Structures are given as structure tokens and as C-alpha cells.
């Protein structure tokens, strides 16, 4: 069986190579701190395998992760090298290779989709070929490796170091934002342990006017969006708001159609995901990848859509989810 952990080790290998590239780059003023950051991250990706399997103490991983936060606070990792081909070289190369340049870029999604849709159901010797629930992630990993090999052959790169130097360049642009989403997942767990959900549920109940359907719908949808903004994740908000309003008021008291109420409630939460920096993987990582000066650029582009769409969700639920 192909395990998803193998691909976390591939990521770890990439981080380790980037650490090595940084360490040996004498022109980089932040070389030691940056190398330490990517090196510790490589360790955390490998060690994490054993934490998940419960065969190693999680505290070691915890200290490594808090060390990464400390390094980030001190301004590491730095941007690193900007070495690549020049604009003029790229013009010439694009003329030479033409649309062949798209082939590796297309291999990635095609392989990922193939794995997610077809190979995810294939069994070998009574066992699933791909670890359950991870087919698309494995497909992304296989697609990336295959695209890399095809790209190396198509373009005749002189040394296997070339793609890793380019990868170092891109990862340098992203910096610590690359692992912020993982960090926020942890925060979600600690928020839950501290009982943030219960407080929000109680507060919702306190402001909820009893007996007026439209207001109850508004409180449910606004609550889903608001709590999602705090937690960065509509999945965390759904059980809380549904237990406070969705089930007892909208379904039980007003006889709402459960699939409609819950589906639209979840989508109201997604409107919150569009506007919160807590959903770093959707909002902050793209800003870093696109080298934006304003890290909140994508959020600002999404706010004017999120607000009317939240209104649309409220209207759809009010008009169509309840009898007569």
C-alpha cells in the first residue's frame, strides 16, 4: 500500500535541500537562521510521522514547532537567492520550447485527478492501493515528481540541482507563511480545549430573539460566518452554531428542511473563510506566492463578494428552506 507519509518525507527532503542551499550561500546575510528554519522544519516533517503513529513523544515536535515560531519572529527565513534566468533568456527559451512549457504544469493536475478519481478505489490483495482518504494528496506528490522528471528531460536542464535552486527561490518568497496554516490548525485545537465554542454558543443564545424566523435565520448565518472568521474554519463553526441555533430553533421549532438548512449554513460559514487571515492557506499563502506587497490583498478582493453572498445565503434559506 502506498502511504501518504512517504510524501511528507519527500517534502522533508525538499526542506533539507533548501536548508543546505541556504547554508552554503555565502552571499546570504541570513544564511544560518534560514538554514536552521528549513532544517528544523525538515526534522518536524519526518518526526511527525512517529508522532501521528504515537511511537514518539509529541513534546519534541512541540518544541521544534515553537522554535520555528521564534525564528519567524526574529525575521527568519530570509528571502535567499534570486538567481534564475533573465527576462531576455526567458524570452528566447519560451520561443524555443513554446507550448511544451505547459506539459509539466498540466501533468500535475491530471495525475492528481487520476489518483483521486480512479486509483483511490483500486484494491491490491484485498487492500486499498492508496492509503484511505489521501488519494489526492498522494496524486499531487506523484504528479509533481513525474512533472519534474518530464520537465528535466524536455528542457535538458544541465544539473539536477537546477529545480531545487528554483524551488529555493520560490520557497524563499513564501517564507514562514508556508507553515502558518499548520500552526493555525493547532490553535483551533487549543481554542476548542479552552471552550471558545461554548462561549460563542451561549452568547448566540443570549442575543437570539425567540419566535421570529427571519431573525433566527440571520443569527444562524451571521454566527456561522462570524465564528468561522475567529476559528479560520467553517468546519469548527458548524457543530457549535448548529447545536445552538440550527437544530433546536430552525429545524425543531420552525420545521426547516434539514439538508437545506445545514448546507446553506455551511456555505454562510464559507463567506467567513473568504475574509479571515486565520484561513491562511486560502488567503495569506497565495499573497506570499504571488509576491504581493499587501498580504491582505486577496482578502480585500474577496470582502465585496463575501458580504452580498452572505446576504444571498440568508435569503435563500429564509425563502426556500421552510414550509409555506
Amino acid at each position, binding site marked *: 500500500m502506498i502511504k501518504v507519509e512517504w510524501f511528507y518525507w519527500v517534502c522533508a527532503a525538499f526542506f533539507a535541500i533548501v536548508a543546505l542551499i541556504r547554508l552554503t550561500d555565502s552571499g546570504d546575510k541570513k544564511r544560518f537562521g534560514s538554514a536552521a528554519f528549513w532544517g528544523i522544519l525538515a526534522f518536524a516533517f519526518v518526526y511527525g510521522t512517529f508522532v501521528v503513529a504515537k511511537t514518539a513523544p509529541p513534546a519534541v515536535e512541540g518544541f521544534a514547532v515553537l522554535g520555528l515560531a521564534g525564528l*519567524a519572529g526574529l525575521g527568519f527565513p530570509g528571502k535567499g537567492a534570486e538567481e534564475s534566468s533573465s527576462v531576455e533568456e526567458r524570452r528566447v527559451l519560451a520561443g524555443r*520550447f513554446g507550448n511544451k512549457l505547459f506539459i509539466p504544469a498540466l501533468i500535475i493536475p491530471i495525475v492528481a485527478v487520476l489518483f483521486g478519481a480512479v486509483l483511490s478505489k483500486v484494491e491490491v490483495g484485498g487492500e486499498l492501493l492508496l492509503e484511505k482518504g489521501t488519494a489526492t494528496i498522494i496524486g499531487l506528490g506523484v504528479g509533481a515528481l513525474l512533472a519534474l522528471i518530464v520537465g528535466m528531460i524536455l528542457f535538458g536542464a544541465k544539473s539536477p540541482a537546477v529545480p531545487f535552486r528554483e524551488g529555493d527561490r*520560490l520557497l524563499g518568497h513564501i517564507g514562514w507563511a508556508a507553515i502558518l496554516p499548520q500552526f493555525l490548525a493547532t490553535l483551533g485545537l487549543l481554542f476548542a480545549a479552552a471552550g471558545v465554542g461554548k462561549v460563542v454558543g451561549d452568547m448566540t443564545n443570549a442575543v437570539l430573539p425567540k419566535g421570529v424566523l427571519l431573525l433566527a435565520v440571520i443569527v444562524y448565518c451571521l454566527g456561522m460566518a462570524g465564528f468561522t472568521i475567529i476559528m479560520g474554519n467553517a468546519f469548527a463553526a458548524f457543530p457549535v452554531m448548529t447545536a445552538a441555533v440550527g437544530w433546536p430553533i430552525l429545524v425543531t421549532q420552525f420545521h426547516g428542511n434539514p439538508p437545506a438548512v445545514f448546507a446553506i449554513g455551511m456555505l454562510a460559514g464559507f463567506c467567513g473563510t473568504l475574509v479571515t487571515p486565520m484561513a491562511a492557506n486560502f488567503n495569506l499563502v497565495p499573497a506570499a506566492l504571488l509576491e504581493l506587497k499587501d498580504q491582505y490583498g486577496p482578502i480585500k478582493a474577496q470582502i465585496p463578494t463575501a458580504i452580498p453572498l452572505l446576504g444571498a445565503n440568508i435569503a435563500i434559506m429564509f425563502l426556500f428552506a421552510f414550509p409555506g
Partner: protein
Amino acid sequence: MWVLLAVAVVVIGFALKINSMLVVAVAGIVAGLIAHLSPMKIVEAFGTGFAGSRSVTIFVVVLPVIGLIERYGLQHQARQLIGKLRGLTTGRLLASYLLIRQLTAAVGLNAVGGPAQAVRPIVAPMSEAAAERAHGPLSERMREKVRSYAASADTVGLFFGEDIFVAIGSILLITGFVDTTYHLKLDPLQIAIWAIPTAICAFLIHGFRMLRLDGQLARMAAEDSPEPVGPLAAEDTKDEVAAR
């Protein structure tokens, strides 16, 4: 009510643009202390949380190959292609991408898009090239706007497409939670169907805003004098020259 202190740390930290890693670390420690966890337990929570969510960082495996094809001129080629499609403005391009992203996500093909594998190498350079053809060299705020809108088309398309696909996480979460808590037997297909009206609204609202981008860019171009900086593909070289 003390738990809201942990939330306040996050809100204030993000608002003041303090390093987000530090903000999250402090907020996590505050939340842990409020929950009466021992310091060791808090450290362990950071460890298990990080280890258990490595899948969200898997996108880094595409960076070497994306960097490689960028080196050999991918972004330049993406711009070349746009040059041939005269009628395709930035707004129309992004509205079309929004629709493609929604439709593919609706049939479970989430991996078709994404900021690392699609927006940076292909969608953003194409959008910029279309904007440059219409308005000449872009000022910094125009470039920021085009790139931000390209990222938003990807995200909105994903969010309000994927929920129409029955086997997606959010639908399984709804049925899983509701069926075990309230003893219902919800059909995932029913939930998926109720995602369609919102998906249509999302396309109309965000698509309309993408189309309006062309007019906004025209106004910005009239106000700004263009800065003498090249497009995404050119920035690397500029920095390199400056460093020497």
C-alpha cells in the same frame, strides 16, 4: 468569558500585522492556560497539531517543478498565448477561470486549480498580460489588484464549487455530525443539491466583479504614472542586478 482573551490576542495581533507565527503561538499558549493545561501539555498540543496537519503543506512538492518551468519561460509563454486572444480582457479571463474552477470543483476535480500550481505560473501572468495590452505598463497598485483578483477567482471558485460534489469533506462533516448527534439519516446528495443556488449566486456576484475590474484598471491607469518595473517574470532579474 476569559477564553475570549485568546481570541482578542489573535484579532489584535493580525490587525497590528505582528508576525503571524508569533501571534498564533501566544494565542495558543493563552488558550491552553485558560483551559488549565500544563505548560508541557500545551507544547504537546503544538506538536500533535502540527504533525497531524502536514497535509495542508503538501503543496510545496510542486515548487521545484514550477520553478523549473518558470526558468524556461512558462510565464512568458502564458503571456504570449494571451496576446493571440484579442477579445480576452483581464476581467473576462478571470470570470472564465472562476467558472472553470467552479465547474471542475463541482465534479470533484479540486486539484485542477490552486495558487501554487495554477495561479502563479499561468493565471496571474495571463491576467497581467491582458491588463498590459489594454492599459500599457502597470503601476504597482494595478499589479497588486490584478494578482489579488486572480487569487480570489481561484478561492471563490473552489469554495462555491466543491460543495456540489457529494464526497467532499464539508458534506461528509454535515452528515457525520448531524446523523450521530440528532439521529437523522441525511442523504449527501440532498445536501449537495442545496449548495447549487449559492454556487450560482457566487458566480453571478464574483463574476460581475471580475468584469468590472477592467473599468477599475482603466481608471487607475489614468490616475497613475506607470512605474518602470517589469512583470512578475522580470522581477527576479531586477533584484539580482540591484544586489550586484
